[in-house]
């Protein structure tokens, strides 16, 4: 359709269809050999005209080069000054193919060469095409545009430019009478010469003017500045990024992107559609793009290419680096030969259930989980038909997923009916893949099974995503009729639907649950997406707003901010956590702060990976009598928490909790499967029956809780996996009932080293107390005897999802910094805690706080600040953290024999009191032995003797420990077994 003055009339056309030698060229003017189109002939098989997708492009390129008698590809500038050459780039063997190679290695595939003689059309394809035709699989539109760069206009006289109108006539048969069939049965816009880009071309059935659309988009690309987006975001009440300098806002964003595209050879431009909205003149374009992507996207592609050329020329004139003279020419020629694609993204996602017939052919955005993907399917883009009678050939493009076979030969002279047959190896194919996308668990309505939709992805997008990936896709929603039978032309009134994908983003989608804590990810992790330039900067904002649409997001945010300003927000939130569980306020508060978490800190400088990392995750251990709803609390947390994993210590082996290596049943490859801890990376791992866990498993937790990694060494694979997770564990006391008279380590069957890794340890004891019992009974009766129980006794509480959203928001957005005041208070509190160990009456020192407690306190205060959406950790945060710590320490680290707090109990398992007692016992024992004879003293006698001297009951376990110590030191010797043991003083020691 775009037919500027043709340089070579069809009759003059030099045929090279067989593409063998130049010598043959002269012969080619003669009527073409019949064998030309016969498939299977070796010469044909070798021709560049083969379009089978299977043939690899570089080889085709090689053949093409040989065909023009060049041993090596020369990169002579196409637009050599003063040269009379045709500006025709060699269209290679697949001029209309979007991506010659799977990953779009365009340069290798399309060798360009200068021809300085006759305007030589290298007829590898029947159609003479100046630039590769953009035939996007995802768009199915056949609007073709011509690049209209300033230079081209100037050189129009020598420029040859063919549009798609030539499609249905074979270049080799131009001398034949032209076919009567109109050129554009596939056009959705009437073909019109495109000399002037603002020629009026309306989208069929609408008033949308394509020329205007193109102009608008061009305007946008040249005029959009970062500041517009910021203003737009601010108007919508979104968080905006602070600019480093006012100049930053003035940057013409897309010109930068285009330059980057030129430098990197990238052909895809990711276009954030919000930017279209933000740029005042192009607001209209946004809705046009959504409604008529089929027409608007190709128009944008065209503008993109024009601009690429324009900017390249501009830069060349300005003498930008790398754009001097020949280098620049080569660059421009390169651009000419490329196909540029605009990949719009950034619409708000809709649930795939909400897609309905009215969305047909519109641009939609959905998210989901890839569950299956087909292998690459060669997808026919252009069918090649040949008349069996007169050998006239016709190319037919795909339209809405199907190709209409010409019923009769289009040549008026021939016009035989039913003689057109498909020549497979001259058809054009593109890569296509069908992907089944399933709803993500958070999008599925309660009690429903997840739905799936089919996605068709093309070219670069093929194989970008794998089963298991979460995607946010932009695509055109299609409905195509179902055929009764593949061989008949009749179709049913049933339609199947799918999405033609234009943009894919992997790993997107905020969910109702807590998002990942981004600070657990190594610096600046990019969400993987398809290649392409532009738009990735805004990903961070997007990931959090991907959920339920912008408006909802804004509302939600407002609501949360409001909530965070409530003076009683702390109480409200802790009350909302497990409302059916009565009392246990402090436990709930501790767990609440665990959910918010402290901030992860890493020392930026230092050895690999940014130096050591200090965990911000808070670990909580609940120890208590059975039947005190510990498990219920865990279940609640599991429901709210991000990547929450619930596991019971009893059933989980080391493997289940960590990761293991297995052979994949399908691929027979070794794969690493992660267990609960790795799965909960960036989340919360809830472990019930912590004490019943095997030692092997528990030992893994040592690493997890301080280093936050899991090391796996199995089947020859040694890996350290990240397990940056908070641990919420519940354990029962040793004899299932907590013994008040014993210190904690004696009550829990857990090594002290592990216990000390918990920031908060709560004892949940079941004490018989009439008042408390009555209250508890009241609570339970109210809960269990009504048929529509009101949770939490009618007090105002937050629903689960809101609580979850609140936490998510705080975790992803708030990163409080400790203020001067707070740090002083921290120091003060710590010193105070340590001082509690000093007893003015004696010179003994019990340890009441260690640096671990200080770290815990910092984490808790950060979490508290986060909870109230404060950017700073302030005095009150530290105070509350201190209070919680004290409460927890008071219950857990109190030595029941002295009533004093002793962190030594937790850290080493031996309290100060115990240590002193052991010292006394040891002294006593030695004196008893020294007094006795050399035959030693019987074990039971020794106990009796000591007991007689002591005012308190002698602890047999303690006694054993003391004797063992003495034996180790070589002071005594124990002989005999069990009751017959005799303790002897070692002579001379």
């Amino acid at each position: 359709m775009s037919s500027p003055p043709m340089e070579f009339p069809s009759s003059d056309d030099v045929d090279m269809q067989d593409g063998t030698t130049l010598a043959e060229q002269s012969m080619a003017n003669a009527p073409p050999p019949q064998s030309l189109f016969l498939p299977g002939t070796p010469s044909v098989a070798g021709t560049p005209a083969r379009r089978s997708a299977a043939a690899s492009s570089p080889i085709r390129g090689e053949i093409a080069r040989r065909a023009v008698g060049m041993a090596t590809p020369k990169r002579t500038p196409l637009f050599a000054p003063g040269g009379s050459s045709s500006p025709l780039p060699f269209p290679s063997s697949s001029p209309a193919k979007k991506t010659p190679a799977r990953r779009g290695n365009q340069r290798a595939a399309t060798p360009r060469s200068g021809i300085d003689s006759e305007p030589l059309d290298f007829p590898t394809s029947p159609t003479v095409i100046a630039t590769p035709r953009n035939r996007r699989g995802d768009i199915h539109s056949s609007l073709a545009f011509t690049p209209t760069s300033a230079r081209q206009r100037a050189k129009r006289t020598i420029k040859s430019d063919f549009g798609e109108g030539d499609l249905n006539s074979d270049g080799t048969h131009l001398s034949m009478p032209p076919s009567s069939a109109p050129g554009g049965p596939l056009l959705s816009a009437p073909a019109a010469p495109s000399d002037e880009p603002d020629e009026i071309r309306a989208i069929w059935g609408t008033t949308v003017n394509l020329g205007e659309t193109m102009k608008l988009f061009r305007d946008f690309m040249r005029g959009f500045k970062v500041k517009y987006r910021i203003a737009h975001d601010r108007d919508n009440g979104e968080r905006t990024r602070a600019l480093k300098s006012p100049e930053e806002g003035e940057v013409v964003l897309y010109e930068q992107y285009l330059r980057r595209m030129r430098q990197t050879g990238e052909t895809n431009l990711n276009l954030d559609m919000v930017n279209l909205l933000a740029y005042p003149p192009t607001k209209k374009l946004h809705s046009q793009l959504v409604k008529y992507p089929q027409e608007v996207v190709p128009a944008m592609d065209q503008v993109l290419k024009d601009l690429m050329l324009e900017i390249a020329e501009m830069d060349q004139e300005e003498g930008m680096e790398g754009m001097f003279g020949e280098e620049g020419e080569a660059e421009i020629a390169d651009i000419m030969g490329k196909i540029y694609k605009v990949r719009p993204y950034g619409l708000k996602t809709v649930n795939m259930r909400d897609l309905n017939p009215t969305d047909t052919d519109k641009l939609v955005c959905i998210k989901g989980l890839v569950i299956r993907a087909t292998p690459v399917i060669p997808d026919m883009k252009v069918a090649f038909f040949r008349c069996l009678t007169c050998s006239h050939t016709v190319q037919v493009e795909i339209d809405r997923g199907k190709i209409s076979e010409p019923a009769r030969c289009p040549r008026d002279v021939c016009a035989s009916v039913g003689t057109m047959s498909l020549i497979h190896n001259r058809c054009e194919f593109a890569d296509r893949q069908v992907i089944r996308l399933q709803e993500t668990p958070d999008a599925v309505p309660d009690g429903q099974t997840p739905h799936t939709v089919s996605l068709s992805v093309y070219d670069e997008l093929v194989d970008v995503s794998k089963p298991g990936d979460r995607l946010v896709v932009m695509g055109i929603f299609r409905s195509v009729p179902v055929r009764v039978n593949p061989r008949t032309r009749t179709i049913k009134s049933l339609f199947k639907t799918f999405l033609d994908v234009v943009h894919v983003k992997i790993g997107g989608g905020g969910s109702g649950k807590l998002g990942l804590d981004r600070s657990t990810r190594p610096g600046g992790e990019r969400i993987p997406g398809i290649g392409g330039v532009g738009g990735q900067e805004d990903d961070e904002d997007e990931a959090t707003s991907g959920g339920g649409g912008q408006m909802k997001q804004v509302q939600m945010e407002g609501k949360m901010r409001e909530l965070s300003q409530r003076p009683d927000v702390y109480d409200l939130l802790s009350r909302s956590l497990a409302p059916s569980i009565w009392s246990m306020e402090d436990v709930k508060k501790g767990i609440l702060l665990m959910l918010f978490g402290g901030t992860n800190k890493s020392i930026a400088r230092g050895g690999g990976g940014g130096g050591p990392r200090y965990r911000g995750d808070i670990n909580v251990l609940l120890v208590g009598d059975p039947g005190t709803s510990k498990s219920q609390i865990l279940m609640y947390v599991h429901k709210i928490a991000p990547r929450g994993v619930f596991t019971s210590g009893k059933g989980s082996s080391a493997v289940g909790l960590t990761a293991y290596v297995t052979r994949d049943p399908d691929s027979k490859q070794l794969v690493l499967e992660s267990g609960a801890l790795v799965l909960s990376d960036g989340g919360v791992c809830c472990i019930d029956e912590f004490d019943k866990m095997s030692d092997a498993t528990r030992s893994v937790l040592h690493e997890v809780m301080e280093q936050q990694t899991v090391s796996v060494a199995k089947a020859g694979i040694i890996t350290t996996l990240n397990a940056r997770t908070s641990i919420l564990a519940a354990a029962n006391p040793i004899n299932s009932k907590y013994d008040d008279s014993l210190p904690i380590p004696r009550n829990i069957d857990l090594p002290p080293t592990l216990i000390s890794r918990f920031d908060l340890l709560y004892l949940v004891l079941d004490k018989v107390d009439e008042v408390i019992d009555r209250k508890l009974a009241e609570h339970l009766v109210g809960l269990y005897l009504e048929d529509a129980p009101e949770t939490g006794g009618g007090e105002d509480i937050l629903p689960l999802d809101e609580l979850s959203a609140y936490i998510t928001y705080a975790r992803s957005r708030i990163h409080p910094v400790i203020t001067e005041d707070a740090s002083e208070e921290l120091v003060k509190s710590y010193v105070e805690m340590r001082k509690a160990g000093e007893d003015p009456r004696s010179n003994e020192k019990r340890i009441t706080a260690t640096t671990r407690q200080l770290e815990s306190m910092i984490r808790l205060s950060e979490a508290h600040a986060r909870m109230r959406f404060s950017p700073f950790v302030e005095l009150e945060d530290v105070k509350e953290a201190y209070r919680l710590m004290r409460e927890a320490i008071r219950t857990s680290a109190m030595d029941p024999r002295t009533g004093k707090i002793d962190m030594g109990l937790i850290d080493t398992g031996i309290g100060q009191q115990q240590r002193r007692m052991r010292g006394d016992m040891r002294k006593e024992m030695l004196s008893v032995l020294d007094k006795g004879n050399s035959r030693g003293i019987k074990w039971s006698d020794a106990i009796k003797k000591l007991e007689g001297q002591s005012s308190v009951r002698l602890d047999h376990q303690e006694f054993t420990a003391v004797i063992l110590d003495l034996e180790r030191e070589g002071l005594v010797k124990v002989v005999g077994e069990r009751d017959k043991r005799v303790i002897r003083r070692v002579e001379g020691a």
Partner: protein
Amino acid sequence: MVSSLLADALRDPTSSLSHLYPSTGDKSNFPALVSRHYSQIFKTQEAFEEIPTLDVNYPPKSHQPRSLVRFRAMVQDTSPSPEMYLSEVGEGACGGWGMDATLNESEIGILDYSKLKECTVVWAVNVPGETDWCKQKLDGAHPDAAREVPTPVRTHKFPVGDVPHVGIQVKIYDKGDTLKSTDVVTFVGILTTESTHSDLDESISVPTLHVLFWKSHPRTLLPRSYPVDGVDGVRGQLISWIATEALGGDTDAAEWILLVCIARTISRHPALLQPSLTISHFPLPTTEITTPTLSHVLSELLPSFLTLPLSLDLLNKLHFAPESKDEDLHSGFLQQPAGTTILVNESGVQEGKLAENGINNILITQDVMSSQTIPYIFPFSRFSFPTDINFVVLAQGKKSAFFKTDIGVELKRRSSDVDLYKPKDRVGGLSSEILDAFRELIGSASSGTVKVGPTMSAYIQNAFVEERQKSPSITQDHLIHMMTVAKLMALSMHATELTPEIWERTKTLESRRASLS
């Protein structure tokens, strides 16, 4: 007028439907109108019963193509993607409902996408646990016509393997998206055969029902009202019948079974779930018959009941939880509608190796028992679905080998030579009136509610505090358990309010049980 409409609809539903279409003003709401129109025609029970049934006795093959049928079914799979259909074909003719509208390719270009409408596609199977008496009551008396053995397609979509069943594809045009997996509904529609549609897999031809209207069933399948007067005598009779026929005269065990069978999930947040029950020391069968008589007795009483004869082989082979493979949701044994009671019989378990699948099955069953949720396994994700199933476990030892249940009752037979495995025909005959009274008692009790007045709640609180003073080992779990059982006790007695008498009665029953275990 209505009667002629009725006759038309019964004789030729397709033409009845296509006549309805042109007379409709607002075409956009046609599906809703169809649903209203036909449910009006078949409003009365008599009219409704005139619709031929589609069930195991009358499988799809026994019906003419495009005939009107009703199908009481459990929705098995709601994951197939909805389909789009052309709601109007040609010159104002009705589309959808499987009407043969084949278009020529040339027409496609000028298709009006605004005429496209969506219909929901689900897979439905007959209710797996439905007992014979319940089926009879719901279907009405039908002459025993051509009894054909159904040849089901896609047997993996039926929860209970190796049983004749009917499974069909159902297309719902009006409000189909409200259906959930394991919902029990009666679909009325036009029966055809169509192929399944899938983008990646081969499609096969399956019986398909195009739904005109559908109605859902209560948890008890038959509608029941609560309370029923004068059940006191019936209750005692029922307990002694269960005890003498199936439990060797142990009335306490029979009472516990009754309580568990009428229980249901009341609330999930906080969790007020039905308790599960283990009858321990249940003797092993002495003859080849391995089905306990209790199974026959309960299937005479409950609307939806299944026996699960556990064995290592079954545990290792069967899948208890539904699993989606290649986008096809395979059913699992525990994919059952709410209100189903499952009798787990452990007598078939021998020594041997339990494979991974078996362990999974046990974990899943335990999960259903204790939290009333069942996982559906989808690729890369597991979804937890609420369920509402009652469990009675028969264990040979002191407690169940596999499961932890809320209540454990030791079986006390009057004499050890009572046969607990006698076949169904030897179950003592009762008149159908008495059986119906039993069924009504159970049915309505399982749908009733009990109130707790303020005095009663104070009474319970006091009792709890006192008991704790006496014995500190009593925890809040005891209280919760007692309250659950007391409520069930009140329900079984068809009381509307919990009274101190019922509380004390529960306490004595509970203490008898506790003293044994």
